[in-house]
């Protein structure tokens, strides 16, 4: 056929390539065995061990440094490092790949890093009759006193049904970032409750339009504002059970506050990772509630806001009036999994423990706030000695154990649901309060599709 339209053909090809390749692969690979193995002494079926075998570790680009640090400190342990996208931005590649290995019955890596918090939800479960991917860590594989030294609550995303399935790499607790120099210049005091925060926003809108006190354009907006308000939108109560109530006072107060501040322009619906944000708001950010990693990713980053040294201050997470103690939300923070199929669990455990606890990586190299408490202390000391921050980092440390435990880590991505239903609705001119029932429905639908019972 002369002149057949290659563009059309290549689009078709691309479109089906994924499915075709997978299908062909499955045809060739046949199906893995379906035999149910007995649990070993450490709480999961173990493969025949070979202490000299090379372990394969999957890391994202930022974690390659962790693998390098391990190799330097442990030249005798043979590891093969494979780089992948860390399952970031909802690509879900970690789960996709493991499911294909499940079908093939071989090929699993020994240790995997994920940028997500909701992988334990599936990795801890048998799927289609196949053994769960993640090894149980707290039944003898990882020493109990090591696990005990992780920051309180930091292993919640890794804990399913009371068993620990992964080690947390870093924490992403939300705090109130503020620009001390600007606040002093304009004569504003740092708020101590969300009510004060809202009042300040209304003041700023009148007195200094153009300045902002936060953003609500990213998919993790609910994790910063609604989670911190104890909104029960994502209360995962069991491996396959979730409670969703978005019509509570807790949800409504945060939604109303956001609506007010969106309306007056002090909390714009702009993603912090857009050129638009940098162009419009450089030098205009008075405050910004957000996760620990905002420091390096947004404020102290020449590509983003590029706030000079000595200006950035940190305040503790804000409480709502009448709440006994402040709670906060959490946006991400990576996790390390050990494969239950590993033929060299000793080396895999050694690697996972090193990258989460050793100073060589967590203190000297890692950009984020370590989940392992002894490393976190040293990391904070190192950050303070850098003289970048205008205030002490104490609030970040306090916030680390204040993440509210009524917001869970299910298989489905709350961020994707928010982006799909809420961001489009808000952009289309609706208020968040009006959209709360829509949000409830969207979460329920998605949870049910993923096999959750919703109450």
């Amino acid at each position, binding site marked *: *056929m002369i*002149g*057949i*339209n*290659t*563009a*059309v*053909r*290549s*689009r*078709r090809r*691309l*479109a*089906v390539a*994924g*499915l*075709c390749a*997978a*299908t*062909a692969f*499955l*045809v060739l690979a046949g*199906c893995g065995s*379906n035999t149910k193995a007995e649990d070993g002494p450490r709480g999961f079926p173990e493969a025949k061990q070979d202490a000299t075998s090379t372990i394969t570790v999957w890391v994202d680009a930022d974690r390659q440094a962790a693998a390098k640090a391990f190799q330097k400190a442990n030249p005798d342990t043979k590891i093969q490092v494979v780089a992948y996208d860390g399952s970031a*931005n*909802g*690509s*879900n590649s970690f*789960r*996709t790949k493991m*499911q294909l290995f499940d079908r093939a019955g071989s090929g699993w890596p020994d240790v995997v890093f994920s940028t997500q918090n909701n992988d334990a939800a599936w990795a801890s479960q048998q*799927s*289609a*009759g196949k053994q769960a991917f993640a090894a149980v860590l707290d039944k003898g594989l990882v020493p109990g006193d090591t696990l005990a030294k992780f920051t309180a609550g930091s292993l919640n995303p890794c804990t399913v049904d009371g068993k620990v399935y992964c080690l947390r790499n870093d924490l992403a607790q939300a705090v109130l970032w503020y620009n001390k120099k600007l606040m002093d210049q304009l004569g504003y005091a740092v708020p101590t409750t969300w009510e004060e925060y809202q009042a300040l926003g209304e003041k700023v809108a009148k007195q200094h339009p153009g300045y902002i006190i936060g953003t609500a*354009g*990213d*998919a993790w907006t609910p994790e910063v504002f609604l989670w911190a308000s104890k909104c029960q939108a994502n209360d995962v109560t069991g491996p396959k059970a979730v409670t969703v109530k978005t019509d509570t006072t807790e949800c409504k107060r945060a939604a109303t506050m956001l609506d007010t501040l969106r309306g007056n322009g002090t909390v714009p*619906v*702009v*993603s912090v990772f*857009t*050129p*638009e944000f940098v*162009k419009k708001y450089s030098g205009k950010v008075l405050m910004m509630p957000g996760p620990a990693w905002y420091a390096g990713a947004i404020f102290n980053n020449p590509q983003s806001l590029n706030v000079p040294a000595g200006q950035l201050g940190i305040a503790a997470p804000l409480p709502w009036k009448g709440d006994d103690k402040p709670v906060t939300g959490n946006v991400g923070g990576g996790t390390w999994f050990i494969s239950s199929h590993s033929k060299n669990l000793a080396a895999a455990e050694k690697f996972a423990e090193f990258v989460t606890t050793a100073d060589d990586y967590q203190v000297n190299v890692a950009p984020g706030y370590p989940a392992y408490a002894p490393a976190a202390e040293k990391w904070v000391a190192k950050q303070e000695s850098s003289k970048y921050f205008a205030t002490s980092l104490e609030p970040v440390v306090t916030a680390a154990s204040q993440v509210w435990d009524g917001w869970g880590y299910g298989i489905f*991505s709350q*961020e*994707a649901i928010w*982006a*799909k239903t809420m*961001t*489009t609705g808000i*952009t*289309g001119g609706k208020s968040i309060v009006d959209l709360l029932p829509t949000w409830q429905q969207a979460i329920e*639908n998605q949870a049910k*599709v*993923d*096999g959750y019972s919703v109450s």
Partner: protein
Amino acid sequence: MTIAAPSDPLIAGAPERRRPAPGNGRAPGSTRIGYVFVSLYALLAVAFGVVPSLYAVLLAFTNGDGGFAGLGNFTKVVGDFRFWPAVLHVAVYLVIWLVMLVVLVVGLALLVHAIRLRWASTALRFVYYLPGALAGASSVLLWLFVLDPTASPVSGLLRAFGFDSFVAVIQPGHLPAIFAIIAFWTGAGGWIVIMYGALNNISTEVIEAAQVDGAGRVQIALRIQLPLLRKWIAYMGVMSLAAGTQLFVEPQLLSQASNAVVPNDYSLNQLAYQYAFQQNDFNGAAAISLILLVVALLLSWVFVTRGGLFERE
């Protein structure tokens, strides 16, 4: 997967010729060489077209443990809250795109064909063809910039429509039109060239006869050229329909670029992908693929019969 229908070269107005029957007056061995030519295609088509399709049929009627599931997978996916919205999305997109494609491609081809200046006509065809030379994914990436008012070369135009952010541009209601424009931009150029070739095949005697009878430019286009292009338009319809029902690349890339504001379950193909790799349900994914295949085949059959693709002159 739809396999293109073979079409006869368009021979109109010339003295009627029929294809010689096979073996009739051909050099011995020429049929064998034909088989050699076809063999590689046939092999690949079986390995990557027929076998996976049959495997999909097998999957669609079984459950995760390999037992017979009857229509269970089909009722499951049709009952999914994402299924009908996805059907609607694809249908609206198809209607906008196919109408746009047929009207604009034929119109532009007629215009270019009517240009008497040789260099202008050649240059135009080249310009039309250029965007199609970009592979599907890269052209979508290019559109990501075009659609973002903060980075777009036509940001003034976008702002004139009242869109001042990327999220405002990609509101759910705008998506079918956006995908149709992207698909048209990447795919139409090649079709214009094909239509131009088809127009060249119309014998000049017929056109001259019409002119002698007093037909103007527009009448010739409507009464002579268009009817003689019918097969080609049908052929374009079938091919585009096959590509269009499998909408995947544009929403998938846009979903990643917009951090999921464009949902990752916008089209049926994406939903199948979600079933396979998000829910580990290959049987459900196969059921969606089969539904798509059946619908595409039915629609193609309409195009083929209405367009007279298999008729012999």
